[in-house]
């Protein structure tokens, strides 16, 4: 298979998303989705969290945190399927599903955060 010219661009998205995921995900995952729902730590109330997310800078941050790592996921996941399961004949479909999913997620995040009220 000839090297696609888009590959370096996708790899940049992969490594950018990798950096974002490495720095921000563990703490956010622990606080927002583990400690707060289980009541282990004092969670901010609805109003506090809502007004925090309403801030433009926070929305921009959330957009970056939700979109770039999706392209990181797409790159890694397609290689997981490629290496782990050896399903080479489905390559085109897998690429389309992974990067398509990342594009859909990015658009969703953009629309939701843009219209957030």
């Amino acid at each position, binding site marked *: 298979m000839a090297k696609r010219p888009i590959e370096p661009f996708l790899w940049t998205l992969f490594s950018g998303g990798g950096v974002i995921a490495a*720095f921000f995900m563990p703490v956010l995952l622990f606080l927002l989705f583990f400690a707060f729902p289980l009541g282990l730590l004092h969670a901010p109330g609805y109003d506090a969290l809502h007004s925090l997310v309403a801030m433009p800078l926070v929305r921009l941050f959330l957009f970056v945190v939700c979109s770039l*790592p999706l392209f990181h996921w797409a790159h890694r996941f397609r290689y997981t399927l490629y290496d*782990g399961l050896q399903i080479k004949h489905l390559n085109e479909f897998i690429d389309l599903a992974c990067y398509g999913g990342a594009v859909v997620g990015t658009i969703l995040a953009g629309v939701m955060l843009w219209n957030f009220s």
Partner: protein
Amino acid sequence: MRTLPQPATPPYTPYHPRWYRTHVSTYWWLHKWVYFRFVLRELTSFGVAYFCVITLFLIRALSRGPEAYQAFQTRLANPICVILTVISLLLTLFHTTTWFSLSAHAMVIRVGSFRVPGILITAGNYAAWLVVSAILAWFLLR
């Protein structure tokens, strides 16, 4: 007209001879710890995707109002969700550590003619990570 002798071309074979390939088991990555670690590192993408999806759900719940937000919090506390969150948390932590030790190889930082050793780059990454995590925690816990 005299015909020149043609250079011998290999005969055309309609069917390609089969290459010799050893069969690799689908479970090759279970045989050795290093192989398993390699695949585990690729599987960290599951945790990354889980975070993105669940964050989008959080944003949706927040924009729909207090009741939707409360319902979402209850759903997050159900056992299946908690297990998925814990798995994703461990995977993202593994991603962070592997990413930082990898960046020591990928980044070449020079001060004058001195190349900053990899261990310092990794240590710097960890320090920055702690600071970033502390700042985010402060925003959410104050």
